[in-house]
């Protein structure tokens, strides 16, 4: 049974302890190149970065539970789970909540010939 949206987190470990690492400027460029996607925080390109991760319940994209993030982490009130910034924007624009499990069900139904004929 799931008790919290933070239950069963994954782990992202990026180890640059024996490396020059990634400059904040480079990581800012990466962030700009992928708007709405979770990337390594600009200040964490050197040394060791370790953070919990989850997947977006709608699109499966990686969500880094970034301790440096100031903005609210969006979640879907229907799914009661975290969603990525892209899906959060889509919901604000009026797109319906569609968890990825629904996508899987639809594909399995469409390929198993179980769809009802109307």
């Amino acid at each position, binding site marked *: 049974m*799931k008790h919290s949206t933070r239950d*069963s*987190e*994954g*782990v*992202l*470990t*990026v*180890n*640059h302890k*024996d*490396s*020059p*690492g*990634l*400059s904040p400027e*480079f*990581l800012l*460029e*990466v962030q700009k*190149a*992928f708007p709405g*996607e*979770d*990337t*390594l925080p600009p200040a964490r*390109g050197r040394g060791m970065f370790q953070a919990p*991760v*989850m*997947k977006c319940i709608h*699109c*499966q*994209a*990686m969500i880094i539970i970034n301790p440096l993030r100031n903005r609210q982490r969006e979640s879907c009130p229907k799914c009661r789970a975290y969603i990525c910034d892209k899906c959060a924007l889509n919901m604000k624009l009026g797109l319906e909540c569609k968890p*990825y499990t629904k*996508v*899987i069900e639809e*594909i*399995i139904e469409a*390929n*198993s010939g179980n769809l009802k004929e109307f």
Partner: protein
Amino acid sequence: MAKRIVSLTSLTPTAVADATNFVNQQYFCILQGGTATQLLNIVEFYLGGLAGANAAMILLSSFDSTVGATITAGGTVDAPLSAATAALAAPMKIGNSATTQPQRSATLHLHNLTINAFGGELRLNYPLDQQAVIIGNAVNTGEVSVSMFTGGTAGAVGFHMIYEPA
């Protein structure tokens, strides 16, 4: 079923933009369902930098908007994590070589795996109910690739991905 691991000892990938053909054996791997309804769970990614000089690389795992055809292992090695694994009736397709080249979707990126290949390493693990799921073998849902995006410097990287057919 049982977990499997696909690995590459060392690869210096070619940077490719979204919606552009990959180049055989210049990306880490593609994983595609063996049937229209096969489920594959991605458990772990590991990237270990092997470059001899600074190589800040933008690596992405993403669903593909064009799926590969006639996928072959290329430079990858795919093996079960346990020797007691039974053979699948319809095995998934995995490798880094194909006749129809896959293309990364511009809108369905899953994981940003940016590292400096000069000594950097990255590991991403997901527990059971958080794993990215590949369903079937169609575009946008049935194939995941791990490849290099434009804008960085390519360097040698060792790679593995653990996945599990459901």
